[in-house]
């Protein structure tokens, strides 16, 4: 399958995936990404906001409201249609890659 864009970095992939269920604020994205990746991706705040900034610039994520909780500002982020499409494309690419390797592993096991 020809890719229309370079593969996403793993943290970026899980940031997009964490927004599938609806808008989240920064800390919510960190927790959801950790959950989805089975604890493998633990985003630092600097990594998260650097990625969110680029994703917003590329139109894959958009801001969806702000609120102040205990005197501190929270901003909520949501997937755009373009972000949804890129995430789906990346998930398919990863699935296809995994499938190819799994088939080879089965074949090797069969020969043994």
């Amino acid at each position, binding site marked *: 399958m020809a890719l229309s864009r370079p593969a996403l*970095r793993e943290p970026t992939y899980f940031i997009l995936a964490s927004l599938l269920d609806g808008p989240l604020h920064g*800390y919510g994205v960190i927790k959801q990404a950790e959950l989805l990746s089975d604890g493998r991706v633990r985003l630092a705040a600097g990594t998260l906001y*650097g990625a969110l900034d*680029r994703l917003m610039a590329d139109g894959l994520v958009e801001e969806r409201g702000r609120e102040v909780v205990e005197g*501190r*500002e929270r*901003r909520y982020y949501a997937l755009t249609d373009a972000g949804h499409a890129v995430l789906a494309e990346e998930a398919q690419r990863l699935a296809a890659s995994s499938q190819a390797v799994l088939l080879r592993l089965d074949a090797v096991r069969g020969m043994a």
Partner: protein
Amino acid sequence: MNSDLERRYRWLLRIYPDAYRADHEDEIMSTLAEVSREDQRWPSGREARALLAAGIRLRALTAGGGSPTGLVVDGLHLGSVLLVAGNAVGAVFAAYAGNSDRWHVALGLAWVFAFATLVRGGWILPVAAAAAAAALAVWLSYDALVAQPAQWFAWAQVAAGALLPAVLIAVLAHRRPLPGRSPLLLLVPAVPYALAMGIVVSPFFLTSTLFAVLVVVSGIALLALPLDPRPAIAVAVFLVPTISLLIAGAAQNVALWVEPSWTWPSVWALICVTLATSGVRASRRVARI
């Protein structure tokens, strides 16, 4: 989050561009408060590293307009500013050492003015100032160039030292107005000159100090590649006149700074090409989301 931890995190956040910090500082602090322990007084190493890395990367991307090409262009601009700074500092120190006539002092002032216009940014004034300084350099070398056309090092000095930055600045300004630069860039060429001149006025010591600083600066630029490819590209540009002169010296068997040999130009050319190609490749990685 206690006040000590908040103060230290806010200090780390100064690495971010001002505009970004104005818009996002409270939000990032809010998230940092949520991931911190109640009794925590110092930023965690992981969060501190991530903030510094993201801040440096964001500065590069902001300057480069978010694209790999923009990063390369900004690196070339940074390199041309360093070349002008080198010319200005070299001329000032030559005058200080009493090695200049009044025309060469004027040339030094022209480069200093060109550097000042580049610090300010824009396009008409920097292009005109760099072109005027380069034209003066050609005029001052004209007699030597005409009388001894085989003197490659004179040609190399004028072409790579004076014309290269002027042409680069003109080409880059044609693309878009040049951004302003920090006046502290003057320190890159000034520090080795000041070190060498402060201890002893010796061409050998100046050369070895310059080379040592160039090695350190090249190393820092390579280390910064994963976050910011612009220093690597800038240092590669900055090395071009040095390499040209060393090649000219080796080709004509003339001792320019060092004993004539093909070893030095080969080593520096290799470093230059490594920096340039690594910088261009890294610009694609840095711009990737």
